[in-house]
């Protein structure tokens, strides 16, 4: 999981300079499930989250403050640092099937500050491009003290309604975010849930309030793979 940055920051254009200490810590969390409910996953998948702790550049500014210039400086750099590590953890861009993103804002910031870093094209479009996806990226955000564990939602990077790929992974930085910091997360998965078997839009019957009591779900029974 050693990371060589694949995309030099200069390639992102004349992003404004940042202080050397803008980025404090990066934590990669990778999970590989070998057994779930006693059985190996039919389609093994690896999940990972990458969390970066950055200084909140807007602490102390009023609620009317325009956030654009710092977004332009910070968000593209974060997109590079986070996706390079995610790709290293998951085995490359072709291996990534699902993605998600998140922000944890320290207690002196606004949720809007986290949104500025993850919901604008200077981050979202670049993450989508670097992970070679088409979908909107689903997300979670919160404001919390250091050490908050955040559950990051993910869905399929090209077909968001693919039910087998609805899943989550945790992200946590033990000493972040401090009150004047923001933790920004990108998450990914190489496949579906371990035993995805709740059908899909293609197999669902039409269920309405009038028919729910009588329509039966399509059977998703699988043979038990255990010996």
């Amino acid at each position: 999981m050693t990371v060589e940055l694949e995309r030099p920051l200069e390639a992102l254009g004349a992003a404004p300079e940042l202080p050397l200490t803008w980025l404090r810590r990066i934590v990669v969390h990778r999970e590989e499930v070998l057994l779930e409910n006693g059985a190996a996953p039919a389609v093994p998948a690896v999940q990972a989250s990458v969390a970066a702790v950055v200084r909140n550049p807007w602490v102390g500014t009023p609620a009317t403050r325009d956030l654009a210039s710092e977004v332009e400086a910070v968000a593209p750099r974060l997109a590079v640092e986070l996706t390079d590590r995610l790709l290293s953890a998951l085995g490359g861009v072709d291996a990534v099937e699902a993605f998600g993103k998140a922000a944890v804002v320290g207690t002196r910031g606004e949720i809007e500050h986290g949104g500025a870093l993850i919901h604008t094209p200077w981050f979202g479009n670049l993450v989508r491009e670097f992970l070679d996806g088409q979908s909107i990226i689903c997300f979670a955000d919160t404001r919390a003290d250091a050490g908050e564990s955040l559950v990051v939602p993910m869905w399929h990077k090209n077909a968001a309604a693919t039910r087998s790929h609805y899943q989550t992974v945790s992200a946590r930085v033990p000493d972040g975010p401090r009150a004047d910091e923001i933790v920004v997360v990108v998450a990914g998965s190489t496949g579906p849930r371990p035993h995805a078997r709740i059908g899909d839009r293609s197999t669902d019957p039409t269920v309405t309030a009038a028919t729910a009591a009588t329509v039966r779900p399509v059977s998703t029974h699988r043979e038990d793979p255990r010996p």
Partner: protein
Amino acid sequence: MNVRKIVTVVDEVLTEGGRPVEPAARVAVVAAVIENPWSGQGYVEDLGPGIDAHASDLGALLAPRVMEALGEAPEAFGKAAIVGLDGEIEHGSALIHTLKFGDHFRTAASATTLLPAVEKRGPAGVVFDIPLKHVTDATIRSHHQSFEVRLPDAPHPGEIVVALAAAAQGRPQQRLAALSTEQ
């Protein structure tokens, strides 16, 4: 040995004390979530057969993974056994406090010292701190450090989390006088 999940954490500290850390300080942890081999058996007097059956395999599973995750030679290392609520701490200690477990890591890391350890019992999601010390001289003060870990859904009551930790350096911005200066 039933392994439910393998979790890898790689941590980089790029800033500490308001100053850049160059190169970034790196720590890696690899944890295996396993079924407690003595789960459901009541008080087992002789843990030897279970140790013989699992400890070496666990060391062989985790050591190459933590070396790969760190991506460079470890200068400090440590280990952990976190026992689910239905087990004894002794069960975790049994698996990690044997040369059969630690020698895999010591050999891979060209290490000569014993691995410092945390042993603890707790619910899934319990936070634990793995102590790390220098791989060839446990008195080297710059390398005394610990690393905080939390696995969201482990250990279950009948499980044990067994982990290895490796650091590529001492503490970021370490600047304490050596032990020898006080002797």
